[in-house]
């Protein structure tokens, strides 16, 4: 298992993608699953970077002092390769606004062009391409796990 803590910023996405792709390459992950995982990382981490810590007023020392990882403004990603069946679990942990992406309503993917909405499409894509997803809010942290078997 590998764990990496990154600033909850869009710039962190390529850093995280590189780390995960390296792990996946060592595990002989097929290219298609690797692409789907890279897209999933982009969708999930961009959500964290854009919304989790949008409530700037809460960004205080109190949270930092609480000790639990990750610190305010950061996200921790746990990378766990699986055997039998082979696959990977990626767990995204942040201390931001509680948000369960699985509760979000699926977008209307048959709407005519003029009524198409992008909101919710990213998480929808992740749901469709991953083997499973799990969310919990615990100890002031959003914990989102995606599993991809390959």
């Amino acid at each position, binding site marked *: 298992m590998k764990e990496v803590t990154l600033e909850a910023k869009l710039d962190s996405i*390529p850093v995280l993608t590189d780390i995960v792709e390296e792990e996946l390459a060592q595990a002989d992950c097929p290219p298609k699953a690797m692409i789907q995982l890279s897209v999933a990382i982009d969708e999930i981490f*961009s959500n964290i970077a854009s919304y989790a810590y949008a409530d700037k007023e809460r960004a205080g020392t109190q949270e930092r002092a609480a000790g639990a990882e990750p610190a305010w403004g950061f996200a921790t990603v746990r990378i766990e390769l699986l055997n039998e069946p082979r696959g990977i679990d990626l767990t995204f942990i942040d201390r931001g606004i509680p948000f369960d992406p699985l509760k979000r309503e699926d977008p209307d993917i*048959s*709407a*005519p*062009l003029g009524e198409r909405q*992008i909101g919710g499409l990213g998480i929808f894509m992740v749901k*469709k391409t991953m083997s499973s997803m799990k969310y919990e809010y615990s100890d002031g942290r959003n914990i989102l796990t995606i599993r991809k078997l390959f």
Partner: protein
Amino acid sequence: MLKIEKNKNDAELTIALEGRLDTNTSPQLEKELKDEIDGVTSLTFDFKALEYISSAGLRVLLSAQKIMNKQGSMKITNVNSEIMEIFEVTGFSDILDIE
């Protein structure tokens, strides 16, 4: 990483993309389109060297399609199977002209 290659011939614009069209790179494409799309009646995206697309990229394609519906036509060529699957899962295959 995204590489954008433009080829403009009067009112025909071809944009070839190489790399990844994601949260960090989509603003580049958005800017190129904003600068170039005026007066274009035929817009072609060449996805031959594009590895993948996330919802941020879909957003840019959607707004380009909306503009082109008013002033001409738009098509996407050389789509790989992974991106095609994303178009299908999201229903974008119904609203985009994919060759």
